[in-house]
């Protein structure tokens, strides 16, 4: 299926490449269908592109690249919402915020996106008591 995007032009996404985000990303409740794009990327960054809004995309990263022990404890209803049967089927990404100062690049560890790779359902989980920051610096 073809989708228009403001950053990457037209992208072709297979049906099984569409990620359905339950309840949307906080602040963007209308956007439910996304895909992962690795266009033009070097290193560990990916794009999470909305398929419902051509302008909406987030830079994401696997947080375990800089915090090995990073873990998300899903509440039972959160696991159920994205049909998790085995924790191993989940991929976890954090959204990256790029500040105007080149070194001010942070990852939102308190609001990870958990994707069930098997069902392609996903959810932004808010880790309330984890002590994780919404702005964890990832560049020196």
């Amino acid at each position, binding site marked *: 299926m073809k989708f228009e995007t403001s*950053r990457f032009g037209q992208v072709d996404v297979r049906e099984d490449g569409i990620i359905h985000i339950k*309840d949307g990303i906080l602040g963007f409740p209308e956007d439910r269908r996304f895909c992962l794009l690795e266009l033009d990327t070097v*290193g560990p*960054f990916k794009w999470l592109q909305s398929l419902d809004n051509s302008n909406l*995309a*987030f830079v994401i990263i696997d947080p375990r690249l800089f915090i090995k022990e990073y873990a998300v404890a899903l509440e039972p209803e959160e696991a159920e919402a994205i049909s998790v049967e085995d924790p191993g089927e989940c991929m976890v990404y954090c*959204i990256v915020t790029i500040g105007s100062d080149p*070194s001010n690049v942070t990852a939102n560890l308190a609001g990870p996106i958990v994707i069930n790779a098997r069902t392609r359902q996903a959810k932004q989980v808010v880790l309330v008591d984890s002590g994780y920051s919404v702005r964890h610096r990832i560049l*020196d």
Partner: protein
Amino acid sequence: MLVLTRKPGQTITIGDDIKVTIMEIKGGQVKLGVEAPKNIAVYREEVYLKVQQENVIAAQAGVPDLKRIQEAWLKQKTKKGGGDEI
């Protein structure tokens, strides 16, 4: 805004299936018990808002921004001796 006065042990209901009970008032803090259907997410507002605000800022990233940080990431990795953690 609707303002209601409640005592510990008393409840307010929102719609048919959300109940908020005042559990305890102590030292300037109020402990609330919330009963809501599973599909209703309940957060402390400040954490929820922080994540939401961060999402809105993060959504402004453009392709040139990512190019810039990729270079910085690779430089940092090289400096640290190849980034053995990756």
